[in-house]
């Protein structure tokens, strides 16, 4: 659900937002990639995961995950724990 709501994410971000070890987050993401639900790409040294639109039930899965995630206020508030919008370089957080 978190991947669907965020549209794309990486192990360290997911771990921080959901309060888990990075290794566990990475294992979970990799297992979904092996199942074909997620795909990944390298951005610099980070592996970014997102829903694989070629998955046979991609459209249904995306809709279901969005519906479930939209109703999960606790998850949304956890995802709010990290700023994603850009901030000008040099401006303190």
């Amino acid at each position, binding site marked *: 659900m978190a991947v669907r*709501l*965020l*549209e794309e994410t990486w192990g360290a971000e997911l771990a921080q937002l959901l309060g888990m070890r990075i290794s566990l987050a990475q294992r979970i993401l990799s297992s979904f990639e092996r199942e074909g639900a997620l795909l990944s790409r390298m951005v610099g040294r980070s592996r970014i995961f997102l829903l694989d639109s070629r998955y046979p039930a991609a459209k249904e899965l995306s809709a279901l995950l*969005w519906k479930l995630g*939209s*109703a999960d*206020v606790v998850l*949304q*508030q956890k*995802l*709010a*724990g*990290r*700023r*994603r*919008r*850009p901030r*000008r370089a*040099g*401006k*303190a957080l």
Partner: protein
Amino acid sequence: MIGPKSTLTDVAFAVCTALQQVSITAVLTGGSAATHYAPDAYQSRDLDFVLTIQAPGGAAELRKLGFTESGQVYRHPESHFTLDFPRGPLAVGDELITEWRTERRAGRVLHVLSPTDSCRDRLASFLFWKDFSGLEQALAVAAAQRRKVDLEKLEAWCRKEGHPEKFKLFKSRLP
């Protein structure tokens, strides 16, 4: 007089009034506008002003208030709030904002995004950057300014930007 107990709104009124005195119209925007509308829910530490009308003398007025330029921001020795003047124009996404709210208090003036546009500005980070903190800030503004946020305008804008489902999620979270 700006001091350690000055709130963001106090500082905003002082700065806006000072600049207005030299014919500069500075509009409070960004997270600082959200804090002005929902101070209990969200605290920004810097004040973002977009100058919609510019004239000379602004820096001198800020110095009179005690602010000094430090890199790209202005700092005050008695306040933890900083001032930033991001490049304009005043806009949310690529939509220009030509009207804003003007508040007056004890002979001072504050130009600030309307509650609807402040909500929209925070929602923009949710729409474009999937930033859920932007969603929470938008919800805080909408809850604090309940009758002053135009939900139909927000919905139309989200639809235009291709994110009707994100407006639906936002609306479902409103108290």
